[in-house]
């Protein structure tokens, strides 16, 4: 009885993995290298943005350090695939795994390490700084993000300012799709549960949340750790897609970009974060035709969006099965009512 959800989970992962591999193969040829890479990049953006939404959207805290957690994950995963690679591949081939599978197993280990390291970083940062509120928390997380980057840039054994190179290209469409589905599914289930409601309560009114028995500090730290772990996974995926880690590209601007995605999608809306992450990854590329005015268009569009729809694309609502069914039902009943009144009129 106790094994049941675990079995379900494993079967679910296997089926999604198979479907993701199949979809990847199907999409690669028609899209071509450039657009296929964009698709994979938008998947990674989805993982990062949806995870940030757990902090900024669900629990109502304000983190500006998400790129820092991505960087921790990137380095942790590279540590596995670069430094632990010789011993690991030897061990895996000793068990008799073929090379193709053993590299996948290695990447799985790298992703796990990334999640663990980034999650631990989230705990270390969260414990002291989540006693802060609002602007103060934002500044503290900003400091963390920039600080962690400076550490990686200055420590020479970690590649110094030029970062890490020759990372194997393990990231595939299937891995990214799995991670995206994982983070979306987890966010959704969390939001529907009593733990999700605890986070929303904290967002709405922290004092009232405490008064109904919610351990607000514990939940804020939990949101932070979960989100950081997923950011680490996004970092690992990005590092093994680009085959290098350039610490400069995980700067404060990256964190801001992720915050923009979450706010534009609608704080707290998983669907919104997904759509905004995909949109904002494609938009600058699609605007390349505008050449030097590209970023002008981009910023004007953002300002325009915030003026006409401040609550974000989706506000706090989600696209779900029930939502789709409701729309169909409403349309059907309207059509039916019209027909009814029409026949009355005729009578």
């Amino acid at each position, binding site marked *: *009885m106790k094994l*049941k*959800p*675990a079995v*379900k*989970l494993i079967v679910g992962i296997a089926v999604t993995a198979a479907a993701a591999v199949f979809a990847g193969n199907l999409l690669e040829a028609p899209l071509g290298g450039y657009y296929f890479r964009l698709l994979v990049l938008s998947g990674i953006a989805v993982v990062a943005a949806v995870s940030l939404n757990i902090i900024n959207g669900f629990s109502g805290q304000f983190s500006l350090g998400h790129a820092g957690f991505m960087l921790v994950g990137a380095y942790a995963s590279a540590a596995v695939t670069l430094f632990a690679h010789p011993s690991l591949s030897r061990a895996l081939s000793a068990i008799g795994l073929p090379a193709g599978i053993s590299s996948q197993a290695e990447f799985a280990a790298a992703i796990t390490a990334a999640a663990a390291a980034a999650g631990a970083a989230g705990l270390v940062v969260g414990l002291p700084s989540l006693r802060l509120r609002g602007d103060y928390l934002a500044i503290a997380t900003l400091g963390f993000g920039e600080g962690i980057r400076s550490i990686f840039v200055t420590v020479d054994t970690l590649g110094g300012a030029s970062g890490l190179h020759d990372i194997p290209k393990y990231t595939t469409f299937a891995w990214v799709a799995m991670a995206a589905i994982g983070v979306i599914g*987890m966010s959704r*289930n*969390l939001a*529907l*549960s*009593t*733990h*999700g*409601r*605890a986070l*929303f*309560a904290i967002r*709405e*009114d922290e*004092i*009232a*949340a*405490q*008064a*109904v*028995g*919610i*351990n*607000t500090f514990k939940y804020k730290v*939990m949101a932070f750790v979960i989100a950081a772990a997923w950011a680490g996974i996004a970092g690992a995926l990005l590092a093994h897609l680009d085959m290098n880690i350039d610490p400069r590209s995980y700067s404060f601007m990256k964190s801001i970009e992720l915050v923009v995605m979450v706010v534009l999608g609608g704080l707290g809306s998983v669907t919104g974060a997904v759509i905004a992450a995909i949109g904002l990854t494609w938009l600058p590329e699609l605007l390349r035709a505008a050449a030097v005015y590209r970023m002008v268009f981009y910023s004007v569009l953002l300002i325009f969006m915030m003026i006409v729809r401040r609550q974000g694309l989706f506000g*706090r609502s989600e696209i779900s099965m029930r939502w789709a069914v409701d729309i169909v039902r409403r349309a059907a009943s309207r059509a039916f009512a019209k027909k009814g009144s029409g026949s009355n009129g005729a009578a």
Partner: protein
Amino acid sequence: MALLEIDRCTVAFGGLIALDDVSLKVEQGEIVGLIGPNGAGKTTVFNMITGVHKPAKWRTMTSEIEYSKQILPTAKKRVHYGDVVFDGKSIRGLPPHRIAAAGIARTFQNIRLFNNLSVLDNVRSACHVHATTSIPGAILRTEAYQDDERRILKDSIHLLHVFGLGKYKDEMAGSLAYGEQRRLEIARALAVKPKLLLLDEPAAGMNAQETRELAELIKQLRDDFDLTVFVIEHDMRVIMSICDRIYCLDYGEVIAHGAPEEIKNNPKVIEAYLGEG
């Protein structure tokens, strides 16, 4: 033994003494009123009970001199702690969520609902204390988790119907009318399944009709939910009609306590409210 016993507690904000050596008792099953002029420290009493403010480490500060003496390190040995005892255990210094879990729920003077959550979710979020599933269980949607969620939903809907809010369950809490928001806040507090309910000016802003209904509701809740109620209220009709006993606070001190009739005729109370005649 009393359900709640505050034993010689002092709350100070810097040099301002909000509560000065306050002691009071609330017995199981009683409805006890707390009255006093504005700024007397009534809400501070509630905040102290619920762990928002911690009683100070010194016990009496009747004069400036004693105050300075008490905070000197050498005076530490003589310092006594004020204590808050609930249901036989000291809850002094516990964080607010542990005090809520121990069985004390409250409403707020200036309504504090989760405005952007639905009416139903406001009540459901307060059922959190009694939820039993872990976070991984919730993410994997285990059988036990789903049972737990179903139970929470059933309890919450039941509570909403008791308060006549069933038809609004999918509305945003912030969009309810004022009186309904007050009722929802009480419903949310009861979802914690408290032994003691603290009501901070529940009738504020209500018209005469609503006030009468509220008084009836409070009495009925006490009987139906096996509650003890401690209520701050300015509306004397409410206080006099529902309370078994009343404490009167002025300038952070208890100046009188007793049955409604005694309080009504107590010269100190009259003076506190109307000034010296």
